[in-house]
């Protein structure tokens, strides 16, 4: 792929937490537009940190991070909020407001486009209300529009969360362990939804996954992290199942010297 299509570029990115823990170390990585990237690794390997540096929920402590060729590390205030608006995110625990209706939760994904007083009073435009309906329809949750979130199952909640993220009209979708709290059946539905966004809407997807088999089923490209370092990066065609012993074993050796970043 040509360099023109590079959407996210990690340039020697470092992340050290205030208490001294190393979150990310020497990350060099290029994500292309329209890719579906699965990030695999043990818990604590830095997967969540990696995702959260992209929408600046975590700040990096060294190196540079570019989106569409522009460095985002210095963004503040309005610029930062516009960046976050263009990056959707879904979470392991869905992070919905349990006591509000599905509709209100989905509309809240649109906050980035409104002034605070308008969004607080619920003054969303008719256009955005329609947008919410369309987003819910896409994830097959329209019939729950007026239901309270705490009456939904986990899988349904995650799909509402996807609809909320869609409201941002994002270019990039970050999915932080989207299926870790779900049962196998709803897992497929949620992953299919993510794949749909990627293939039909052309949204670039980065998903942290625990399961290698799911990663191999859905992703175009798999990257592996261990101890905050990039230890694996291959397009799906070159991936073979036993590559992952290195990522998931406690030994430091990396199989096959797979890093090409």
């Amino acid at each position: 792929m040509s360099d023109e299509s590079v959407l996210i570029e990690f340039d020697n990115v470092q992340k050290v937490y205030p208490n001294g823990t190393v979150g990310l170390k020497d990350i060099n990585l290029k994500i292309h537009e329209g890719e579906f990237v699965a990030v695999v690794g043990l818990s604590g390997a830095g997967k969540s940190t990696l995702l959260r540096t992209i929408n600046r929920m975590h700040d990096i402590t060294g190196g540079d991070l570019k989106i569409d060729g522009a460095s985002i590390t210095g963004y503040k205030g309005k610029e930062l909020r516009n960046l976050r608006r263009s990056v959707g995110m879904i979470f392991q625990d869905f992070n919905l407001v349990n006591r509000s209706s599905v509709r209100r939760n989905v509309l809240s994904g649109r906050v980035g486009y409104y002034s605070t007083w308008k969004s607080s009073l619920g003054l969303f435009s008719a256009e955005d209300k329609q947008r919410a309906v369309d987003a819910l329809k896409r994830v097959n949750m329209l019939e729950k529009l007026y239901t309270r979130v705490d009456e939904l199952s986990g899988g349904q909640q995650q799909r509402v969360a996807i609809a909320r993220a869609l409201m941002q009209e994002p270019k990039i979708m970050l999915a932080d362990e989207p299926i870790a709290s779900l049962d196998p059946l709803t897992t497929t539905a949620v992953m299919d939804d993510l794949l749909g966004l990627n293939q039909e809407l052309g949204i670039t997807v980065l998903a942290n996954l625990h399961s290698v088999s799911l990663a191999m089923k859905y992703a175009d490209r798999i990257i592996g992290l261990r101890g905050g370092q990039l230890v694996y990066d291959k397009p799906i065609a070159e991936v073979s199942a036993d590559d992952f012993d290195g990522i998931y074993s406690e030994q430091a050796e990396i199989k096959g010297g797979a890093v090409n970043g």
Partner: protein
Amino acid sequence: MTENVKKQNFWARYSWIMWAVIVLAFYVWSINGLQFSGLQESAAEVSKSIMHGLFHPEWSYFYDGSGEDLFSLIFQTLAIAFLGTFVSAILSIPFAFWAARAPRENKFHLRSTSGKFILVFIRTFPELVLAIMFIKAVGPGSFAGVLAVSIHSIGMLGKLFSEALENMDRGSEEAIQSAGGSKADMWVLATMPTIMPEFLSYTLYRFEIAVRSASILGMVGAGGIGTPLLFAIQTRNWSRVGIILLGIIVMVTAIDFISGTIRKKLV
């Protein structure tokens, strides 16, 4: 090594003796310290009159249209508790944010520790003294009672609110932030809807307590049913004491039931 083990065993085996001695000493000190006046000779007689009064309440006092009857004063007591709790709930919110510790902060934190101390101080300051202080400011009557309940309840509500803030699920805040929301968006769209039911439930619980205290604040002149109750006790009008006690019991039971039912629905 073996000696060490033996020592620990010794301590584990006989430490209860030390505790027993401490507890016993504490009790001996307390019993000797108190001057038990012994029962007055009239005690049996008074108890009998109270019992008689309780079973023969003065029904005519229930309602006589004067505004000084049981019915009116019970509602005045409820009004004191309601208004006091409401004002207190609003005042408690800033105190809660003052005292709450942010997720990754140390155990000692100047802001939150000082806030917690203020709340302990308010909680400990006797409500009765507050009532008397407010009587100086606004004169005797139920308004002084409202003010006393308002201020005193901050101690407990502020503590409960701040703990609710410390323990709340921050996930929805993170989601709003990652969608490009400002701090104010986070507060209105995520924090408030998440925390409000809990705040309401605690406020109702505090209301139950306020009803009890509003019924005695009248003993120092801060309005409600307490004033005629103390007067009836001092004049030994036991049948009137009886009807007032019945009134308080019914009121407290009813409020506990209603408030409990709403609280179950909230959470």
